[in-house]
């Protein structure tokens, strides 16, 4: 594809539909996207359901189809449930760009993956085992049993553990339903019921905060370590207090920018299923089978976390 600034002559309408509005990570995507949209002659709309429900996202898609948007970008609550509605959109000539959490491949034109799953799994393991040791007993605190991306990451964690740290034992898997309070309760329960646990891998924004809060409340800072996938604002205090030594994520603001850039290219019809392109200020990306990997995991720790505000 072309590199540099794409053709922005025609003003287009692009919507960004997160899993739910009201979470800081998605807000960070929005911030980046908004700024980028202004540069690319895009009418930008951020809309979505209030609770993380597929029904709410489908309602949003349907209204966007009726309003003849050019591109829909979305991170899905569920890969399969959203497919019919998105396919309707594609049939109506709308380009669909998934980011963060994928939908069924047939129901989108491109997918921007945050980071490659194995890389992220490795980062999660390393940021705990480095401190808890290769013989640690660890627990997993996730969002819900059927959360796609979390399950992918957990799978990658298990694969990496088996290969690299075979002595590490996963003694419990709990779910916090993406609710900070339920994650906290689950975290407390894990630590109380399994006093020998020294690491919690919590690959979910609410879960890692809950796990960190639980460790702090039980006074186990420095004895139990946790990590997860969270925006820096949410975990800043725990990174500073040492409950969290390292936590991997990626730059959500920049990811939002890339989403808009890809949306523009897709609308222009300037992106092929296998392709490369360079986005000014973001870098060069490879499209492989419609999938674009956004970045390597970005590891936050006490030394760098204050550079990121989202």
């Amino acid at each position, binding site marked *: 594809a072309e590199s540099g600034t794409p053709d922005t002559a025609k003003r287009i309408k692009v919507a960004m539909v997160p899993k*739910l*509005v*009201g*979470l*800081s990570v*998605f*807000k960070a995507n*929005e911030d980046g996207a908004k700024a980028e949209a202004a540069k690319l002659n895009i009418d930008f709309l*951020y809309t979505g359901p*209030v*609770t*993380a429900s597929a029904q709410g996202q489908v309602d949003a898609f349907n209204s966007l189809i009726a309003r003849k948007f050019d591109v829909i970008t979305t991170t899905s609550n569920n890969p399969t449930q959203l497919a019919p509605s998105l396919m309707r959109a594609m049939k109506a000539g709308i380009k669909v760009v998934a980011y963060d959490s994928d939908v069924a491949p047939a129901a989108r034109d491109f997918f921007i993956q945050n980071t490659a799953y194995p890389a992220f799994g490795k980062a999660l393991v390393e940021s705990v085992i480095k401190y808890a040791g290769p013989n640690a007993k660890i627990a997993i605190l996730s969002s819900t*049993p059927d959360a796609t991306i979390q399950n992918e990451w957990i799978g990658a964690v298990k694969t990496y553990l088996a290969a690299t740290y075979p002595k590490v034992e996963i003694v*419990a*898997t*709990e*779910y916090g*339903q*993406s*609710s*900070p*309070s*339920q994650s*906290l*309760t*689950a975290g*407390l*329960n*894990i630590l*109380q*019921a399994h*006093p020998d646990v020294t690491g919690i891998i919590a690959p979910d924004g*609410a879960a890692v*905060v*809950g796990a960190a*809060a639980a460790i702090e*409340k*039980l006074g186990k800072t420095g004895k139990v370590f946790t990590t997860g996938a969270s925006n820096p*604002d*949410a*975990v*800043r*205090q725990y990174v500073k207090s040492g409950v969290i030594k390292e936590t991997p994520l990626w730059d959500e603001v920049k990811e939002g920018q890339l989403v808009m850039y890809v949306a523009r290219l897709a609308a222009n019809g300037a992106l092929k299923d296998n392709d490369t392109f360079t986005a000014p200020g973001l870098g060069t990306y490879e499209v492989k089978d419609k999938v674009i990997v956004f970045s390597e995991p970005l590891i936050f720790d006490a030394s760098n976390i204050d550079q990121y505000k989202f």
Partner: protein
Amino acid sequence: MSAAAARSPAASRPSWRERRELVLVAVTAASAGVVGLVNPGFLTFENLRFVALNSVVLSIVALGQTLVIAMRGIDLSVAPLMGLSAMVCGLLAQSHGLPLWGAVGIALALGLALGTLNGVLVAALNIPPIITTLGTYSLFGGLTFLYSDGTQVDQVPPAYAAFGNAGPLGLPVPTPVLVLVLVTAACWFALNHSRFGRAVLAVGNNAAAAYNAGLRVTAIRIQVYALSGLLACFSGLVFVCYTGSATVTTGTGDHVELQSIAVALVGGTLIAGGRANVVGTVLASLFLSTVLTALVFLQVPPIWYSAGEGLMILVAVRGGTRRAGGTA
């Protein structure tokens, strides 16, 4: 309390099955004991402290719900009210450094105002409580959303965190638990020994008769909904202090409205109104917290937690129900 209770107006001496407090204490202790046998870690002071702490927020909401149900009403809007207050207090603290006393004032004022709105809709406009609060459920949830504008609370000032977790003056009992004891005592006194509380029960027994006996039924109804709103918003503040976080789905996402009703009814309050048990409510909430923690200690697969909660509700409500034909 027992001396006072002996002189309370309790009609006839109830059998132990009808003393819901005793039943709840017994089953809670029994479940804790059994789990303790399987996994001694359950019975450590630290763990029990958290079992108690985890029940505080729900208990406070449920106390308000108890008063409303005692009056033959129902308040579904407690969940979004709790979330709204958590969000407003949390965001103001997080980004504007609102001092704790200010947050208390804001939470209480918010609860009073919106609770009064519920009360006016129910009492003056005569809209059935379940419909009123179903409507305000959407409204208050929307306010939370509009206010937060897509952001969340993930950090509160140290004063808040200290209030939510530590004990005052270095006591081992956390402040929220003490606050709950105070609020419970106040509700208990109000319901059993104040004119206001007795009037609430009279309205719950028979509103027309209460009116004819000279009670200001409309005003009482409004006051009780205001109180329920107040407690819900206060619990939202406790929540944000304890967890240090809040999102737009706080309260509604955990179905606090249904949990608070369940806990009140399990505690011995009649859904048809007229009889209420505030101590039972708090004990039921403690029981719920115990059960949910116990499931983890017993290594029950997480997907069955909610089934455990449902069973517990049915069993506990069943244990000592005097058949009342009424419905919501």
